[in-house]
């Protein structure tokens, strides 16, 4: 099956093509076909996973097409190792769940078919990205997921905010891609290949100077910053929540944003080669995680809270991977790689679930504002239960899957005290804001009676995926239970396998931290022992700062966008006034000069020409009498000329002037003669003719 892994992305592409060209008029057919394709992909991904497990994660690489080009290979190929297999599984699982869920969520949308087409296209790009075996291909799919993300965020493009958000997402990630491209250029230039293995060999062999590796690593990481919404480019992700909720679940929580993390994990060899680059990665991850967590504390839009939570968790993973690179570069062993990738997987499941459940709630109450919800738990049993499972999981409560991955990450930071402290703090805040969400939404009294009355449990197509993901949120992390002899860490690893001994004390600490966060939320938002408003009042400046997301958008607007637009306008003015002005000025000068010439021309040069023209006209007025139309007159004329010619030719008359003069005189004379004769009789003839005609 592994050798046919290329089919996994191609099936959704097939679905996309079929829908766009043949099925788009039939909603049932297009959605059904799209779901069927992703389910087949899912089964195939499962088989691939099992086969990869059977090989103990031995990488499988296939090349389909290579073209050498000025000593750089461009190729299309597959790379299936354990990381890939797991990512395939994650993407297809969440993808399938989301597509099924969308059957219910998007039911009445006028562009239903198109939605499924976009989803299929996205899944194609994402799966392609995961399977790519070289930088070039990964970049291509990287951009394609960006495109589909753009299309899906702006799916309800009639809403200006949605359209704006789509544009913002695309451009912001593109800024990251800018770095990615430069990184690719550096890689291509110094390594001479795009193939992962080839590049890593070059890095490991020390052919490439260390400084270059650092620069390349940081530039490549820029791509991840953009795509995974890391500081300072994190601003697009919360806005992206304007898209339909299934899209948020699939793209902006579970898969696409994880692509940045996947990229860092995939090119870990480069970071391993440079401690500095790794440190940059880790620090960026930590900053992002902390900022996002603090912002998440005070937001009121349910999806935005989840979005900031996503940013925060992604920062976690990035940090773990960065620390792994840093440690390994210094020769230590570290659990960071395992932790990061494991969290990538578990996070995909529970965050997907959280979004889908949130979507279910929004579907029921038609608002995103948690201040208008409350007490929905009894009315929406499945939704609330699964939501709470996911919240427990993300908070890292034993024994849900989030616990195992989070624990690994915290274990990674043990050797770095600063990181350790912040990590625990973030874990605390995560637990707090997630449960703040839970309590405000599902417990207590309804704060908006009208909306509450309206609420109802979602249809089964929506709840079943929730249940399935809930199941995964509980059990997916169990593969990494440290006591398992052949657990996750013996399967997904980087470099040498390293089996970390379980650290029970650490597990205890992390659980206590998470639990205390939940308890605090419980007191504030359920028991209302501590007034949230009073707290906010007390820390008003901090609250305002957090509530306005550290004013990132405003700062960007003020510092970058406005000056850029002003600059663009200035350039346009410059272009129109100065450069074009120079051209037009030259033209003006030329025209001025030509006006002078024109005067000269009109009165002197043209005067001569016109004068001769005038002469000719006047002459013609006389000469036209010659053209009488009378044959006899012509004959007479000919005769006269013959006679005169004869006279001169045979020297009856001796004229000692040059022949041109003779000719002129002769012609003039004859002409005059003819004219005179015509004039003499012309009137009479004309009169006669007129009579005849009458």
């Amino acid at each position, binding site marked *: 099956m592994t050798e046919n892994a290329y089919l996994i992305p191609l099936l959704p592409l097939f679905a996309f093509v079929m829908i766009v060209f043949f099925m788009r008029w039939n909603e049932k057919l297009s959605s059904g076909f799209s779901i069927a394709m992703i389910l087949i992909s899912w089964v195939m991904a499962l088989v691939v996973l099992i086969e990869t497990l059977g090989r103990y994660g031995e990488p499988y690489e296939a090349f389909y097409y290579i073209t050498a080009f000025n000593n750089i290979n461009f190729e299309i190929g597959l790379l299936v190792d354990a990381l890939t297999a797991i990512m395939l599984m994650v993407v297809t699982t969440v993808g399938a769940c989301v597509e099924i869920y969308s059957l219910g969520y998007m039911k009445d949308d006028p562009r239903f078919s198109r939605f499924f087409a976009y989803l299929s296209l996205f899944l194609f790009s994402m799966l392609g990205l995961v399977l790519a075996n070289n930088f070039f291909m990964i970049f291509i799919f990287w951009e394609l997921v960006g495109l589909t993300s753009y299309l899906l965020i702006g799916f309800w493009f009639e809403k200006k905010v949605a359209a704006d958000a789509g544009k913002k997402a695309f451009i912001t990630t593109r800024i990251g891609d800018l770095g990615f491209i430069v990184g690719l250029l550096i890689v291509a230039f110094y390594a001479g290949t795009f193939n992962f293995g080839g590049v890593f060999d070059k890095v490991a062999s020390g052919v490439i100077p260390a400084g270059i590796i650092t620069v390349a690593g940081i530039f490549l990481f820029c791509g991840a910053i953009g795509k995974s919404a890391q500081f300072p480019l994190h601003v697009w992700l919360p806005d992206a929540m304007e898209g339909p909720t299934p899209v948020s679940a699939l793209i902006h929580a579970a898969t696409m944003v994880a692509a940045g993390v996947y990229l860092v994990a995939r090119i870990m060899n480069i970071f391993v080669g440079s401690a500095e680059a790794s440190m940059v990665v880790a620090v960026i991850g930590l900053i992002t995680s902390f900022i996002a967590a603090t912002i998440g504390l005070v937001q009121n839009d349910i999806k935005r809270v989840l979005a900031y939570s996503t940013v925060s968790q992604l920062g976690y993973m990035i940090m773990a991977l960065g620390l792994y690179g840093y440690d390994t570069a210094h020769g230590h062993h570290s659990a960071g790689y395992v932790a990061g990738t494991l969290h990538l997987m578990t996070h995909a499941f529970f965050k997907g679930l959280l979004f889908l459940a949130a979507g279910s709630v929004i579907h029921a109450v038609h608002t995103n504002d948690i201040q208008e919800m409350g007490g929905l738990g009894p009315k929406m049993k499945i939704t609330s239960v699964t939501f709470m499972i996911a919240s427990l999981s993300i908070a890292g409560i034993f024994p849900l899957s989030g616990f195992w991955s989070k624990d690994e990450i915290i274990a990674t930071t043990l050797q770095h005290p600063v990181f350790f402290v912040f990590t625990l703090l973030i874990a605390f805040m995560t637990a707090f804001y997630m449960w703040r969400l839970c309590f405000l939404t599902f417990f207590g009294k309804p704060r908006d009676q009208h909306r509450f009355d309206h609420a109802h449990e979602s249809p089964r197509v929506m709840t079943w995926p929730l249940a399935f993901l809930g199941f995964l949120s509980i059990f997916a992390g169990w593969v990494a239970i440290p006591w398992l002899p052949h657990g996750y860490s013996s399967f997904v690893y980087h470099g040498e396998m390293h089996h970390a001994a379980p650290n029970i004390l650490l597990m205890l600490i992390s659980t206590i931290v998470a639990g205390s966060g939940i308890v605090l939320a419980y007191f504030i938002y359920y028991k209302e022992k501590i007034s949230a408003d009073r707290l906010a009042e007390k820390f008003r400046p901090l609250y305002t700062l957090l509530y306005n997301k550290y004013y990132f958008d405003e700062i960007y607007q003020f510092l970058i966008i406005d000056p850029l637009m002003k600059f663009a306008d200035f350039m346009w003015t410059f272009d129109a006034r100065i450069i074009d002005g120079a051209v037009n000025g030259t033209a003006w000068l030329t025209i001025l000069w030509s006006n002078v010439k024109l005067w000269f021309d009109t009165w002197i040069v043209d005067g001569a020409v016109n004068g001769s023209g005038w002469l000719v006209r006047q002459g013609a007025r006389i000469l*036209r009498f010659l*053209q*009488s*139309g*009378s*044959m*006899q007159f012509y*004959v*007479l004329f000919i*005769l006269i000329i013959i006679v005169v010619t004869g006279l001169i030719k045979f020297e009856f008359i001796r004229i000692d002037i040059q022949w041109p003069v003779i000719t002129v005189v002769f012609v003039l004379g004859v002409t005059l003669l003819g004219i005179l004769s015509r004039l003499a009789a012309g009137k009479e*003839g004309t009169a*006669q*003719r007129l009579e*005849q005609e009458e």
Partner: protein
Amino acid sequence: MLYYLGLAAVLFSIGLFGVITRRNVIGILMSLELMFNAANINFVTFNKFILNDGLTGQLFAIFIVVVAAAEATVGLAIVLLLYRNWRGINTDNVSIMKW
């Protein structure tokens, strides 16, 4: 021989004068016949006095006579046509081919 040539020249000039001055198309045709005859006289004269052998000049004259006859036929037919169309055969009236 010069007398013959002189006669031809006179006849030709008269014919020419007629062609130029006659108002009537038939008159012009008649003047043309005069000019043909002048030419014929020349041909025959040269045949008699200059040509070493043969009767080429006379033959030419014969052909000219024949052609003249043909020309007269067609010309007169045209005259008839003109007459029908214009109710007159004066050349002044036929000079529509001018500016």
